């Protein structure tokens, strides 16, 4: 026993210190449920640290949104009779030298207590996490690991971010975590207890990645019943693995004698050796046999008989020990075996009596079966809980369901929703379970937050014959979460009618219905219905119990997002922006991360549609940063951020980049369920195809139909724009004019396109008339205004007014330069190259002095740098390429013009750049001009 450890008064003749308490059972309970003894252990471990300082006990809201989780991060306490075995501690000390340590052994082998004792005696902070069967999804797993590290004051994890999506964790997040940890001078120590509960292979891969890259900054100890799917053979070969295995955990006869003595049993050496042989040194077996022997009249004879028997050990001993308990105690133990955590009130609810408090206290005092977790909460050793469960089913078949039902009701009543749902599902009481979820206003968690996968999984087991509006709402939510609004429709309709009959009651259900309705309306492109649903939600909010909405910020955030998106579809950008901004600025936190990110993407799309390229890019990048910070995978707004970036790249004539972004945006979901995203994707793809000169494909893409209840004006406009541009590119000005002359086309961009088409048809006056007729200020950004200016410039050029043309192009270049817009110039056709060719301009690069272009003469001398000698002469072909470059032709166009492949042109360019000592197009042209090579 470690000096200073409170041994306390003798607790009875035997104390099965192996009652390893599963701290996983502590997810709920009162705040501050940490047992005193545990806290002592943690605090002493922390205060002894020299480099980390005390771990923050509480800082802001728990990112996991579960205040009771903290108990899973505590190092479990050891019972007073715990036997510290020096050989094992010394072996475990190697854990400080190897990145990975694995302690494995069967249930009840004493793994957890060994590591807990070692951790508490280290004198430095140890991050502890007891895993739970529900930590299966990578997002949830890493959120817990990060929180465990944070709790122990590992500051580095703060920079890593936090996953907010159950199903995924961004690789970048893990890379950041590993990089931050690898910079530590003293390693952080992380213990993952009950790691066998983690079965997802990707989590093992991710852990291996972090272990590898964190290097000396992280020491991980896995406590597990089964070998994890890690490359253990490699670690062994490298000597980077410390292993404590079952055989080593087994008690030697000497250790067993000490342990038994601690339980008040003094046996002759031969008897101890026989007992060790019979139990094979299995800690749980030793303790149970001590317990059983103690309760018999003659321990020694009893143990002899046990040794001679052939029973399965735990089963037999537990039955013996149980059989010696009073009837009421037996009954209570069997009933509470369905629980993860027990408190007297809950146990009373299961037994229908009022004696649980006294019985549990007595069991704990005798250290039999139960371990005290703090305040009034107790836990059963998982091994015993399993066997007691088998006894329960044998003695009272059918009672288990009823017990789950009672537990669910008690937990619901006490505010432990997740546990109530789990027990309700275990009881098969789906009406209750669905109602518990809906009444708690937790329906939004199907869509956002770390529990969405859990909820979906839980309710996937719901029988189809369960009735009631709540069950229908849950079904609708599952369909909507899967992106199938059509299948959700009937359920929603059913629920709505049932709730209408209820009148003013069941406000939470009605609000849930409105929320799902808004989402369904958004996904089907029905803005009117979304407005209606949002208005209804606003009214119902008055009836919601106070505090409920504060506990569920995701409800408001989701409502605003859906409303904003529906308005965006309807083309009401200003109204949409107000809803989206409200949601984007709403409460910070994991559960609102997804709607926040969606809002940012949609705001970026609005900016792009208005022609504000730079602003759209910044917005989209912010959305992607948010997505990365919270490891959000794609959902209904699948890849909208990437899509906006792709659109911006097209406008900048960065076609390869646009292609890559477009691919990324479509990688997750080939068919986005959200019409805004679907239409956006079609438009960007069509624009890219146009830019690549694949007009027919562009026409096909643009005219692909996005199914929706109501048409979207901007989607129509942009389709018309693509169609018009495609006709124009193929030299058909008439249909090009017609495409954008539809009365539905009312946006500036359409007028500009129509003007361009008129111009191409040889009708500059009509073009200018159209442009002059535009309202002065419509909030259009440079992507639109630059194009308008270029049309005017071309019109002026045609009428022979070259000065005006030049002045206009100059202004266009200036405006475009800020946004790095290039596409409008490329689109305008050859005339602009001629115009620019007479003037030493080098395209709308960010660094060119655009003002010079405004000067009529264009002969402004520029301070030439002292001409450096060319080491190598340019070849004729390189000169050809450079000349075309100076005409602002794209690589593809040069290739077509010279009958070369694009790659050959690139090679010529690369060589030319090298010879000229430059690395950009604009510079190359300038340098070539300076040298008179062009």
């Amino acid at each position: 026993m470690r000096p200073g450890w409170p041994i306390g008064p003798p607790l009875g003749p035997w104390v099965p210190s192996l009652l390893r308490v599963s701290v996983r059972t502590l997810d709920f309970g009162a705040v501050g449920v940490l047992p005193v003894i545990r806290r002592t252990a943690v605090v002493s471990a922390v205060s002894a640290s020299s480099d980390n300082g005390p771990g923050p006990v509480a800082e802001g809201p728990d990112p996991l949104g579960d205040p009771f989780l903290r108990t899973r991060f505590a190092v479990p306490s050891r019972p007073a009779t715990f036997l510290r075995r020096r050989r094992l501690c010394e072996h475990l000390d190697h854990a400080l030298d190897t990145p990975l340590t694995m302690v494995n052994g069967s249930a009840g082998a004493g793994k957890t207590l060994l590591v807990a004792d070692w951790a508490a005696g280290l004198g430095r902070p140890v991050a502890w996490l007891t895993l739970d069967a529900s930590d299966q999804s990578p997002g949830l797993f890493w959120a817990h690991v990060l929180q465990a590290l944070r709790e122990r004051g590992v500051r580095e994890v703060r920079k890593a971010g936090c996953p907010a999506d159950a199903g995924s964790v961004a690789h970048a997040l893990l890379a950041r975590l590993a990089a931050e940890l690898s910079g530590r001078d003293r390693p952080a120590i992380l213990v993952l207890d009950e790691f066998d509960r983690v079965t997802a292979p990707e989590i093992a891969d991710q852990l291996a990645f972090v272990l590898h890259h964190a290097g000396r900054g992280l020491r991980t100890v896995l406590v597990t019943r089964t070998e994890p799917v890690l490359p253990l053979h490699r670690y062994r070969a490298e000597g980077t693995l410390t292993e404590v295995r079952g055989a080593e955990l087994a008690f030697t006869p000497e250790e067993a004698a000490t342990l038994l003595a601690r339980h008040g049993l003094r046996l002759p050496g031969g008897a101890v050796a026989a007992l060790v042989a019979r139990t094979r040194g299995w800690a749980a077996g030793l303790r149970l046999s001590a317990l059983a022997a103690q309760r018999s009249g003659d321990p020694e004879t009893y143990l002899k008989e046990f040794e001679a028997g052939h029973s399965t050990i735990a089963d037999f001993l537990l039955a013996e020990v149980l059989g010696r308990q009073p009837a009421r105690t037996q009954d209570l133990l069997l009933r509470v075996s369905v629980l993860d955590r027990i408190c007297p009130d809950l146990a009373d609810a299961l037994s229908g009596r009022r004696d649980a408090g006294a019985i549990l206290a007595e069991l704990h005092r005798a250290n039999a079966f139960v371990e005290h977790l703090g305040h009034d909460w107790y836990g059963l050793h998982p091994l015993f809980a399993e066997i007691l469960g088998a006894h329960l089913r044998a003695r009272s078949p059918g009672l288990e369901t009823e017990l789950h039902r009672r537990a669910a009701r008690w937990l619901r009543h006490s505010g432990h929703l997740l546990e109530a749902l789990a027990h309700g599902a275990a009881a098969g009481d789906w009406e209750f379970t669905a109602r518990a979820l809906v009444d708690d206003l937790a329906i939004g968690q199907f869509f956002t937050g770390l529990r969405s996968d859990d909820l979906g999984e839980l309710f996937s087991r719901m029988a189809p014959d369960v009735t009631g509006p709540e069950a229908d709402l849950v079904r609708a939510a599952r369909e909507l979460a899967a992106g199938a609004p059509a299948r959700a429709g009937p359920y929603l309709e059913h629920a709505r009618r049932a709730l209408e009959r209820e009148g003013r009651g069941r406000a939470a259900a009605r609000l849930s219905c409105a929320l799902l309705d808004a989402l369904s309306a958004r996904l089907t492109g029905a803005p009117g219905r979304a407005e209606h649903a949002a208005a209804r939600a606003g009214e119902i909010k008055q009836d919601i119990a106070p505090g409920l909405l504060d506990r569920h910020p995701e409800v408001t955030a989701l409502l605003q997002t859906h409303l904003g998106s529906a308005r965006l579809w309807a083309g009401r950008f200003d109204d949409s922006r107000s809803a989206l901004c409200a949601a984007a600025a709403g409460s910070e936190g994991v559960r609102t991360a997804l709607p926040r990110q969606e809002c940012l993407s949609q705001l970026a799309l609005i900016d792009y549609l208005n022609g504000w390229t730079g602003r759209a890019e910044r917005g989209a990048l912010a959305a992607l940063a948010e997505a990365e910070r919270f490891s959000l995978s794609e959902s209904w707004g699948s890849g909208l951020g990437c899509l906006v970036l792709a659109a911006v790249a097209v406008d900048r004539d960065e076609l390869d980049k646009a292609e890559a972004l477009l691919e990324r945006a479509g990688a997750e979901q080939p068919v986005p369920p959200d019409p805004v995203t679907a239409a956006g994707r079609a438009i960007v793809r069509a624009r890219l195809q146009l830019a690549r000169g694949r007009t027919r494909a562009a026409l096909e893409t643009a005219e692909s139909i996005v199914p929706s209840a109501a048409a979207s004006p901007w989607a129509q406009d942009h389709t018309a724009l693509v169609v018009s541009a495609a006709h124009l590119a193929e030299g058909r000005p008439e249909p090009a004019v017609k495409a954008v002359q539809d009365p539905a086309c009312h946006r500036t961009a359409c007028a500009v396109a129509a003007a361009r088409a008129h111009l191409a048809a040889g009708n500059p006056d009509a073009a200018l008339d159209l442009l002059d007729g535009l309202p002065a200020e419509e909030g259009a950004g440079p992507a639109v205004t630059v194009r308008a200016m270029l049309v005017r410039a071309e019109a002026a050029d045609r009428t022979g007014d070259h000065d005006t043309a030049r002045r206009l192009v100059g202004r266009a270049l200036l405006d475009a330069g800020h946004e790095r817009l290039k596409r409008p110039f490329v689109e305008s056709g050859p005339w602009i190259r001629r115009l620019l060719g007479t003037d030493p301009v080098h395209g709308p690069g960010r660094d060119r002095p655009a003002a010079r272009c405004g000067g009529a003469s264009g002969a402004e001398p520029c301070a030439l740098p002292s001409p450096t000698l060319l080491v190598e002469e340019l070849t004729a072909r390189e000169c050809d390429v450079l000349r075309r470059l100076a005409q602002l032709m794209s690589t593809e166009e040069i290739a077509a013009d010279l009958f070369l492949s694009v790659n050959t042109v690139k090679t010529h360019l690369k060589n030319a750049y090298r010879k000229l000592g430059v690395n950009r197009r604009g510079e190359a042209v300038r340098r070539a001009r300076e040298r008179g090579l062009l």
Partner: protein
Amino acid sequence: MRYEIRVDGDMSETLAQAFPELEHVRMSGQTVLFGPVVDEAHLYGLLARCQSLGLRVLEMRRVPE
């Protein structure tokens, strides 16, 4: 497919009921659980169940139908 799982010790009737889908027979200090196994998931589930009940698995084999 049918499997046979041999565990150490005489399993009590109560504990055997933790495997309602299997039959069992006790012989010379061992218990053999046997019966149809639906698929791999079921198989691994049975192994995990043995582990969580503190049983020691001595042998496990597939038996001809």
